[in-house]
């Protein structure tokens, strides 16, 4: 049976969502532990999230 492309797109979105969710959660933990480092953590978080998002979009559009 052939699996439709849209299933792959959905899997990618799930993966990207989990990844970004983990980054966000970890950043929250880190900021709660060290509020004075919030700015640095936020920057690192946004960069990591952006990289995952980029892969998610690339895979989604390559469909």
């Amino acid at each position, binding site marked *: 049976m052939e699996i439709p492309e849209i299933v792959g797109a959905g899997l990618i979105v799930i993966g990207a969502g989990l990844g970004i969710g983990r980054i966000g959660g970890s950043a929250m933990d880190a900021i709660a532990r060290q509020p004075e480092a919030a*700015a640095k953590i936020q*920057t690192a978080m*946004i*960069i990591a999230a*952006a*990289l995952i*998002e*980029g*892969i998610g*979009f*690339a895979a*989604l*559009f390559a469909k």
Partner: protein
Amino acid sequence: MEMQNCMRSKFTVFFALVGFLFFTAPAVAQDENHEELHHEETHVEEGHTEEAHGDVHHEDAHHNDAAHGEEEGPKDMKDIVKETITHHLADSYEFHITEGVGFPLPIILVDNGLKVFSSSKFHHGETVAEVDGNYYKVYHSKIYKTDAEGTITYDDHHHPTNEQPLDLSITKNVFMILLMAVFMFFLFSGVAKTYKSSLTPKKAGKFLEPIIIYVRDEIAIPNIGEKHYKKYMSYLLTVFFFIWFLNLVGMTPLGVNVTGNIAITFSLALMTFIITQVSGKKDYWMHIFWMPGVPVLIRPVLAIIELIGLFVKPFSLMIRLYANMLAGHVVIMSILGLIFIFGSWFASVPFTFLTLFLSVLELLVAALQAYIFTMLTSLYFGAAVEEHDHH
């Protein structure tokens, strides 16, 4: 007293805007509803025919008529919404603002010499334009060379086989870029001039100074380093404001989608790529081709990976901005389109709110994408100019 008046007028404007938002969408939806009602009526009649058994011939004919009417009748609302969205996302040869309002843009073709003419010659893509004995036709927003009747021939895959002249037209997107370039030039050179008399920010500088300082202190210096950052500030600021302003213009009802166009994000990413490679120092190239500090056997493997990474970085820059802006536009317009698909007053209230919410979110994304692009660009510049001391 004056302040109260001012407050009141602000509230009036606010309520007028909200009211406008609430009443236009359902009104249009209601207008579309007429056709659906009409459809329902025919369905009822059809149902009736099945119950009543008399005069079969007459009812049969009526049934056929109804089926025929459905085929040839008005297009499905879903298709209309889809068409509107694609039309909004695509680049075009004329600046279309709303029904009947807009202006043509110049078309520049290289086809045995330069051919320059106005896009009004196409009459919104409906007719063939004749220039110096050559005929051109717009087909799926691309210009093809045709004969006088505008015949387009197809291959097996339904792709046109007509010749395509080199197209350097000032399209809607190009027009917006040029407009933005002029706007930014006058805005920023004007602001720069005010600093000659005193260091206190004046006029637009009051708004722009904190943002410029932010780009310098939070993006450029931490990523590139105190020593080298000055060289790259002009590029980083230009890219930041260019992307941000164009994202914001994309949120207006003008229907321009410049940063959601892959050709434009490609050019931006290409510029970042070239500047990174040109400013790459010895350490940068050594880290790509002969990674220090790892076993010699692994070094060629790493070189291959690093070499791929060299091109993946600008590629991801390009895709990220393009996909984010495109997805934002599609989502907002799809949810707005749901009002018309449901065609009911009840649907309009939640979907109007949802659209409002997503539009506000998109304003955040507009700034965030500009920030991320600038941030990653400066990160790559930083990697290129970094000097390590290995032992």
